[in-house]
């Protein structure tokens, strides 16, 4: 047995196998995360260097008249951005996956491949492609909206439409991910189960809600938490389409752009690493809360449900 062997002599091979992963991961992932949290408790000192200030940075972020509105704005925008993904992207993804797993649909592989295409493009491309399509100069969006009798507007340029528009662009790009994850779960449902229900006279609608949906609940949880973490970490699309300022007038500012701006500075405002680390700290708390709710709230409930069944 390998266990006895490794107990007898020093298990060099185990160390050799594990060392590279542990070193790289610790040095470039765990250390920066921990050190960044530490830095959020420091501020530039007058004598140069950085001095420990406790939770003052967090206090400033929450109460100072220059910081608090930006933090609240970014948090609110980020939450709206998340709601669009959660209640539009994921249900549409589920609908498409259900259609793609249906026995009446032909050419599944082609549909699947084509619908997934936007997901492989970078945020930069997606951001600019939509900037062009929505540009009143080009008028493409105007031509299409006219069909539905909607008047064209500079959707990304107006304060009240920029964030919903940007969220929809992101939904357009990422719908492939929930679609694929739901599809994988739906395919895994045994055919006999569905066939038996069909023989009992279940309609497609009843089949979905009474059998398929309960069975893919674990995937619903995974998709939700992936959406949450991804959205509260988002930056690239806003940067590409609306610049790091979250234009117009911070209406598309997310935590990611707020973090970037604070860390690197923008225009005349110089960068501030410790305040940047503080915003990263807030993001860390938000994401961790989501993950913990998922792990202890959702997963435990599922386990209980499974035992009851």
């Amino acid at each position, binding site marked *: 047995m*390998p266990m006895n062997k490794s107990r007898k002599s020093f*298990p060099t*091979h*185990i160390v050799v*196998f*594990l060392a*590279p*992963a*542990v070193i*790289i*991961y610790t040095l*470039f*992932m*765990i*250390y*920066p*995360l*921990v050190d*960044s949290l530490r*830095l959020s408790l420091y501020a530039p000192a007058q004598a140069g260097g950085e001095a420990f200030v406790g939770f003052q940075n967090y206090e400033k972020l929450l109460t100072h008249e220059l910081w608090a509105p930006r933090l609240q704005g970014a948090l609110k925008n980020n939450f709206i951005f998340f709601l669009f993904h959660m209640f539009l992207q994921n249900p549409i993804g589920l*609908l*498409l996956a259900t259609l*793609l797993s*249906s026995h*009446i*649909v*032909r050419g599944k592989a082609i549909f699947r491949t*084509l*619908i*997934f*295409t*936007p997901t*492989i*493009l*970078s945020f*930069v*491309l997606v951001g*600019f492609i939509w900037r*062009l399509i929505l540009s009143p100069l*080009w008028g*493409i969006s105007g031509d299409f909206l006219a069909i539905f009798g909607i008047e064209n507007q500079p959707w990304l340029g107006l304060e009240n439409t920029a964030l919903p528009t940007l969220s929809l662009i992101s939904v*357009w790009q990422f*719908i492939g991910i929930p679609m*694929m*994850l739901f599809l*994988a779960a739906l*395919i895994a449902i045994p055919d006999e189960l569905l066939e038996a229900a069909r023989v009992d006279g279940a309609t497609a609608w009843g089949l979905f809600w009474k059998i398929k949906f309960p069975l893919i609940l674990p*995937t619903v949880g*995974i998709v939700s938490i992936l959406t949450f*973490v991804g959205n509260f970490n988002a930056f690239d699309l806003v*940067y590409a389409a609306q610049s790091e300022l979250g234009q117009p007038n911070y209406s598309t500012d997310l935590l990611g752009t707020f973090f970037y701006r604070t*860390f690197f500075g923008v225009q005349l405002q110089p960068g501030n*690493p410790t305040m*940047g*680390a503080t915003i*990263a700290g807030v993001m*860390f708390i938000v*994401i*961790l809360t989501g*993950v913990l709710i998922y792990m202890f709230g959702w997963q435990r409930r599922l386990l209980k449900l499974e035992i009851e069944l």
Partner: protein
Amino acid sequence: MLKQFRRPGYLIQFLLAHGTLFIYTLIALFPVFLVVINSFKNRRAIFRSPYTIALPFEPYAENWDTVGYETVFKRAHFDTYFTNSLIVTVVALLLILIIGTMAAFALAEYRFKGNTALGLYLALGIMIPIRLGTVSLLRLIVNLGLINTLTALILVYTAMGLPLAIFILQQFMRQVPRDLKDAARVDGASEYRIYWMILPLVRPAIGTVMVFNMIPIWNDLWFPLILAPGEATKTVTLGAQIFLGQFVTDWNAVLASLTLSAIPVIVLYILFSRQLIRGLTAGAVK
């Protein structure tokens, strides 16, 4: 099939399902299609007839123009950016696979003190995004003298990809039958040899890990922007971002650079879409 069609409800369902999928496919592809066809037109045609196709031969040649591509090739080093992206993605993927399989093998194969704890420690990074440590990561990279190098990006992407890679690979390695390994041990094979022997058996998992990491690394904007913004180390994504920002009013150049950066990815995607989708669906089941 034909018999089913006689049921009226079936036909309606059939049409509804295909209609929905068809409309969504159009929504997904039309914006990209529009950008590609207009990148080969002159400026006037882009605005006057955006929905027509221009080709270099009659009767489609009236609006054909490649001035956008000429600007891109003259003003930006897309060949350098492309090479950089390729090096970063390929090397990071190789490192993730080599280092990841080694660690996953050790965690799955040996029962040693702290095995579970180490597994959990390595899994932390699946949920917590590495971006949150950027402030300290930048300082670390500067201190190591790695700022504006591809090495910095490779190391960061490797660290970023390892947690999920180890997690997935470990599950697959556990399924390899014990007898196989014990037989090899009886024959006097070293532990390293056994690791090497296992690798081909977990090929599906390796495919999944590659697929999960390839696209995010290639498309990432955050770390190239922060760790390697120099002209010599720009990746395609960052290069396109900066070029697009500078040439925002030159519609020909913008459309051409968008097409140039999208085409390689789309071609690769079409070539590997079967593996990619298989990887996504295999990795998703539990």
